[in-house]
Each structure stands twice: as C-alpha cells, then as structure tokens.
C-alpha cells in the first residue's frame, strides 16, 4: 500500500508557481528522497501534505485518507521536521516536549527521554537560549516522540554538526527498520544517496523523474574519460552529451549501446580511458540543464 499518494497536485500562490501537476507515490516502509534545488517546490509539497496550505487543484492521500478531509487524523501518525524549527521561545524544552506529547494518544514520556539522551538535548533550557543546531535537536525529538508511522523531513540536516548528522541518520534508519516510512526532502544528494531507496526529482515545480536510486544511477548512462595523444576527438555520435575537453582529457556522458562508443574509441589513439557510473550529483545536474 502507498502511504503517500499524490495525484496531479498543483499549488499556485496567486500567480506565482508553487508546484504543478505533481504525482508520485511513497510505499510503506521505504525511505523516499525528494530532491530539487531551492525554490523547486519541496517545502510546498510537504506543507500541502500537512494541510498548512491547500492545493489549487489535484489531491493527495496519506494512509489512504484524503488530506483535505482528514488532516487531524492523518497528522496523528505523522512526524514532521521542518528545515527551520520555531517554537514558543519562552518555554523550557521539557515543557514544550510534554505539551507536544499531550496531543497524541500515547504515553510518550519514555520515548521522549530516550530520544533526548540520544540527541544529547538539555531538557531544562529555555528555547530562547538555544542555538540553531540545538533547536533542530528539539525538532527531531518533538517530531519523533509520538512514534509516528510516517516521518516528513524537510532539509533536516541543516544546522547539525557532522556527528549529530550521523546520529540523526542512524536514528532515521532505525525508525525505518521498525517499519516507519520516511519522506526525505533535500538538496544535498550525498545524503539522499546514503539513505534513500527511491528518489523523486523536482524542478521548477514539476516532478521530472521518480525512480529507484540504482536505476537512476545505472540508467545506462556512462561517464567516459579519454586521454588522447594527438588532437581532439570529435565524439560525433548519437547519445553523447556534455563533452568537455581539458588538458588533453575529454570527458563525456554516453547513453545507448555501449558497443557503439567502444568501436569509436578503438579508432582513436588512446593513452588512457575510463568508463564509470556517473555519480548521482552528475545525473542530477543533468536534469537541471
């Protein structure tokens, strides 16, 4: 069953574009990466799922329930970590967490303590006095303390030091092993690559691709680097893109029948050649151009 089912979701803010005709599904138990540059519509999509804003057209279902009709019931099972967390400044961390817990039908106290000690969170400080990173930690604990079945992360690692980032990723992986579905929005590909099974790529408000992270990487596209002794090879072949020559090294991407390019290479006087999988980063840039 799909935990999130988005169908032609469109959001305009007045005349300016939020997202257009976005459709995708997130399966139960997977970690779904949602990648795109700033302003592509990642936060808009998440805020639509949370009913903080309402769609211009299209619809979405979470746990099989319509977001427009059953928001509160849906949100009972959702944990949300925004890119920047804002809480009532004059509250103590522990009071804020207790306040948050009081809305969920669970005894969340033990889980709260567990998470707080894991994230090394000081419970008796006031939110006002916390640094950006520490606020983020409060956000992580608050987002997970009610053991949600779906976790929505919007650029979650901003503000966390590398050590905390690792702890956070371990935590998310552990939650995922328990069966929690994770929707992970980010513009940092390496973290998506590390964590996710599938990714959706959003660009200028439109979903340009949804696929398995491996197929995305394989995708039959190869990155080829060739050193030639004399002159510059033309690589005038179908399927060749992004040819860059620098200091006698030519780099290019090739997509298609690999024999074609191999035959062409043998006609050159080659010093050195490497054929490898492109990184996600490179594939990603490809989508942006």
């Amino acid at each position: 069953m799909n935990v999130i089912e988005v169908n032609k979701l469109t959001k305009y803010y007045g005349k300016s574009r939020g997202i257009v005709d976005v459709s995708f599904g997130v399966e139960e138990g997977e970690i779904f990466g949602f990648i795109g540059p700033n302003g592509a519509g990642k936060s808009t999509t998440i805020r639509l799922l949370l009913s903080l804003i309402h769609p211009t057209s299209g619809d979405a279902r979470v746990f099989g329930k319509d977001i427009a009709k059953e928001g509160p019931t849906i949100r009972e099972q959702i944990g949300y970590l925004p890119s920047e967390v804002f809480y009532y400044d004059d509250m103590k961390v522990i009071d804020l967490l207790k306040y948050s817990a009081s809305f969920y039908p669970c005894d969340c106290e033990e889980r709260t303590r567990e998470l707080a000690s894991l994230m090394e969170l000081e419970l008796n400080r006031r939110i006002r006095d916390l640094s950006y990173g520490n606020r983020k930690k409060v956000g992580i604990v608050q987002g997970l303390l009610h053991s949600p079945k779906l976790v929505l992360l919007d650029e979650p690692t901003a503000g966390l030091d590398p050590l905390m980032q690792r702890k956070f990723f371990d935590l998310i992986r552990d939650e995922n092993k328990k069966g929690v579905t994770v929707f992970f929005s980010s513009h940092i590909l390496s973290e998506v690559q590390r964590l996710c099974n599938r990714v959706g790529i959003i660009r200028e408000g439109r979903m340009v691709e949804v696929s398995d992270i491996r197929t995305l990487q394989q995708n039959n596209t190869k990155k080829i680097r060739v050193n030639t002794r004399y002159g510059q090879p033309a690589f005038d072949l179908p399927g060749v893109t992004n040819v860059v020559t620098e200091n006698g090294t030519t780099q290019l991407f090739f997509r298609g029948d690999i024999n074609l390019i191999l035959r062409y290479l043998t006609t050159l006087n080659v010093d050195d050649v490497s054929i490898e999988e492109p990184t996600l980063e490179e594939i990603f840039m490809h989508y942006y151009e």
Partner: protein
Amino acid sequence: MNIFWHEIKANRKSLLVWSAVMVLLVLTAVAKFSAFHNNPESLAILDSIPKSVLDGMNMRAFNLVKLDGFFGVVFSYFSLMGAMAAAMWGSESIAREERDKTVEFSLVLPITRSKLVTAKLLAALVNCVLFVLITWGASALSARAYQPDAGFYKFLGQEMAAMFLIELVFLAMGVLLGCVLKKYKLAGSMAISIILTAYVLFVVSRMHEKLDVLRFVTPFRYFDAADFYKTGRFEPVYLALSAGIIVVCLAAAYLVYARRDMMI
C-alpha cells in the same frame, strides 16, 4: 484543554500590563474627582467649552460633582480600554502563531484549526473577564473614600456589564482580524484603528442631533453610560446588534481560518 492553558499562560503578561494601566487610571481619576466632589463652582471651567464638545464627551449627561456622575464620564475610558485590550487579545493570540512561525508546530499537531481558534478565544475571554473584575475591584475600592450609596454600586455594576459586552464585541472583531488577515503584522494596528474610528464616531454621534443616526454604526453607542444611567437598562435592539456582530465575526473567522493558507 492543553492549548487553552498554554494560551492563558501566554496572555498573562499582557493582562498584567493592561490591568496595571487600568488601576492607575482609576486611581488618578478618583484622585481628580476630589476637586469636583460637592463643589459646583469647579464646574465653571466647563462653561468655556462648546456644548457640542461637552456632549461629545458625555459631560452634560452627568452631574460631575457626584460620584456616580463622575464615573459616568470615566466610563468612556473603561469602554475604550476594554475594547482595545479585548481586540488585541483576540487578534494577537491568532496572529502571533504566524508571526513567530509557530504555526508550523501548532497546526501540524493532530487538531483541527477550529479547535485551536476556540481554545484561543476562550483564553482571551478569560482575560476579558478578569480585566473587568480588576476594573470593578479597583473602582469600588477607590470610591469607598466617598462613602457612596447603593445606587452608585448598582450603576458601577451596570458599567462593568457594559464594559464586558463591549469587550465581547471587540474580542470577536479581533479574532476575525487575526484569522483573516494574511499580513499578520496588520492585525493589531488594524484593530486599534477600527476601535479609534468607532470611538470618534461615538463622540461625533453625540455632538449633533443630525449625526445621531451614527448610533447604529459604533458599538460604543450601544452601551452608552448616558443612556443606561437614565434608563437603568440596555436597549434590546443594541443587545441584538451586538450579538449579531459577534456571531457574524466569529463565524467568518472560523470559516476563513479553516480554509486559508498559512504564511510561513
């Protein structure tokens, strides 16, 4: 329930400030009254002021040398303060969630937006009740020096009822502004401008007979001390109008807030 208590705490400081100002106002007013008390000559200065101005300020409707008359004039300040405080509590409690960007927390909780508005409305209502009680207490205590009769206390009680009703009207209006305005920074200043306009209309409506039609436009006229001092009661038509304003404002507030996009 938890939101309600959270709101009560969040409103506490504001209630303290408004109450302190109110108590100070009552104390200075009563101190000024000592100059008028049973001293008709002191009113001579009023002769130099145009009658329409005096009417606008309700000064001719009351006998200023008597305590109840004096409190009749002071009531303008009670109603104005009550209106402003109530409208601020109503609009602020809603608008501050967007201003401080905490909607991304509070509206992600598994509650409906209506529930959030209700809790905030009730908490602001508690502030309104306490504000009236504090005004009442301060007035009754400071008036004791003049050994007022039972009639004064009855009139004071009526003034407090009127103040509370005015609070209700402007609380509903404040909640509406907080819920509807996308530019949350405007909510507070807009509430104050509406109140001041209503108050100016109230003053103007008393200045000349021809302007008396304005009495339906400004809620301050619905509960005018000069009227209920004379008749001893509130006019049913004004009570109905107030109830209408409150119902319409709140219904619109709930409807719009439930459907609108949060600006973060």
